[in-house]
């Protein structure tokens, strides 16, 4: 996988009078994992929404491999190499796990969806979906309707859906949120496997996990980046400790 340079320049997002993001500037280098941490309401999800096209930016630009993607629609950014998982699971209810993944595979492979053959006849798509099915550990649930999966399995499917687009840049919004203890190690292992070789923004409240996986940590507070640095530096940064970790310096 080549490329995958993501740049934000002075990004502002406003919900009415409320400024959710005020001037986010950062460069996300190819193949690196960036942990995005900060208290509830800091604007972490909003930053991902701005980068993937779900909310309009009031000011500022976003670049993917030096292509200005600021004005592009959601699907156009996906086709430009961006993948995204959501904090609140977004899967296709009423379809099986395998069908969910096949839908993702079809989106990636065809600009105009074939209408002249039954979907089951596309063996390459089936294979691609089955590969990801195995990768996220859901093979035994392939034919289960997605809405009947446990929360942890739904989170795994959520991540699987993003993988079929073979994104160079991957935005993961709390992939471990709500995953039970018994499934946690498996989920962490999955995240660790899929982030390698991609540019990744990872929002995660589990500090051990972010610190372990990330090359660099960004601390967001009130719509701004408070501090950046290696996990070690951020852990020892007094401002971060007081603002976020709630400790006295």
């Amino acid at each position, binding site marked *: 996988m080549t490329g995958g340079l993501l740049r934000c320049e002075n990004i502002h997002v406003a919900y009415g009078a409320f400024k959710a993001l005020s001037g986010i500037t950062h460069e996300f280098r190819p193949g690196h994992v960036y942990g995005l941490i900060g208290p509830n309401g800091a604007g972490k999800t909003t930053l991902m929404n701005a980068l993937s096209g779900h909310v309009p930016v009031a000011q500022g630009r976003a670049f993917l491999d030096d292509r200005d993607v600021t004005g592009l629609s959601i699907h156009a950014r996906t086709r430009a190499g961006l993948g995204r998982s959501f904090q609140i699971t977004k899967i*296709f209810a009423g379809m099986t796990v395998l069908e969910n993944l096949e839908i993702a595979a*079809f989106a990636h492979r065809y600009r105009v969806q074939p209408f002249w053959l039954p979907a089951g006849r*596309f063996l390459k798509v089936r294979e691609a979906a089955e590969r990801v099915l195995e990768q996220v550990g859901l093979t035994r649930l392939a034919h289960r309707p997605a809405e009947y999966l446990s929360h942890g399995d739904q989170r795994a499917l959520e991540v699987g859906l993003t993988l079929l687009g073979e994104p160079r840049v991957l935005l993961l919004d709390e992939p471990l949120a709500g995953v039970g203890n018994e499934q946690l190690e498996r989920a962490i292992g999955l995240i660790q496997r899929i982030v390698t070789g991609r540019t990744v923004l990872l929002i995660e409240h589990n500090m051990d996990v972010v610190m372990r996986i990330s090359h660099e940590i960004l601390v967001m507070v009130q719509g701004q980046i408070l501090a950046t640095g290696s996990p070690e530096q951020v852990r020892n940064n007094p401002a971060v400790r007081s603002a976020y970790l709630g400790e006295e310096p």
Partner: protein
Amino acid sequence: MKTTWLGTALMGLIVGAMILVPFVWTGGEAANLVALILVWALFAIGFDLVFGTAGMLSFGHAALLGSGGYALAILTVAHGWGFMPALGMAALVGAAMAFGLSIFAVRVSGLFFSLLTLALAQMIYVLASTKLRGLTGGLDGIAGVPRPALFGIDLYDNDNFYVFIVVVFLIGLGLMALLRASPFGRSLRAVQANEVRAAQLGYNVQRLRQAAFVISGAYAGVAGSLLASLIFYISPQMLHWSVSGDVLIMTVLGGKGTLLGPVLGVAVFELLKEELSQYTQYWYGILGAVFIAATIFLPNGIAGLFAPRRDRDKGEGR
């Protein structure tokens, strides 16, 4: 909602049996009724691609049915076109009309989509009844809509014309089965199930909705033509909003989001109408009561009877 293969087979058997009735009971009467059902079923199948598969409640489908019917009537009666080219053109006109509506309508979603399609369709109804009188014959409509002339067979004979309609219906049904099973059909279901996720995966949601609407328009165009030809007549009644309401009721009654459900819904609707209207002028009110009872006791429509129990209990069309 998914029906089991056995359920689908049973529904297919019922539809097949219905299609065979006029071959046994000749004389034109049965043929006329089942022809009417099949033509409306073609309309409903197309409507359900938008409604049941893509998840958009269009309230403007009368405009698509009517414009197809008018296209055929005007081309054959006023311009001397042959029936088959005019039928093809009616499909295109239905599709083009759908495309025109969709430019405005797919930008909005939910209730606004329904209201906007209703408003646009009403505009066309008013235009056809008044301003475009020269073209459409105004409220008088156009009489003498012809039937096709094929292989020297007399299609003014109802039993013969019925065969023609069965063939068109089966082609339309087969194409729709393929569309629904294709990756395109799946992408429409994906858009309905989770629009945001579909867009995030790279689907152009607006374009997909538009495509569904346009295909639906072609179905409506063909159905409108056949309807005009079946009764030799077209008037603005075919553009009336109640037509959009009827096709909605038929589809919900039969089971939205299934291939054969709408066909059964049309059949039940038309048969009840045929029976009830012989006894009372308030047949539409009774039909309404039947419809309300059906939505309570058969939330997935008639097709819900053929679904696995787990899906049936969920009480929602999927």
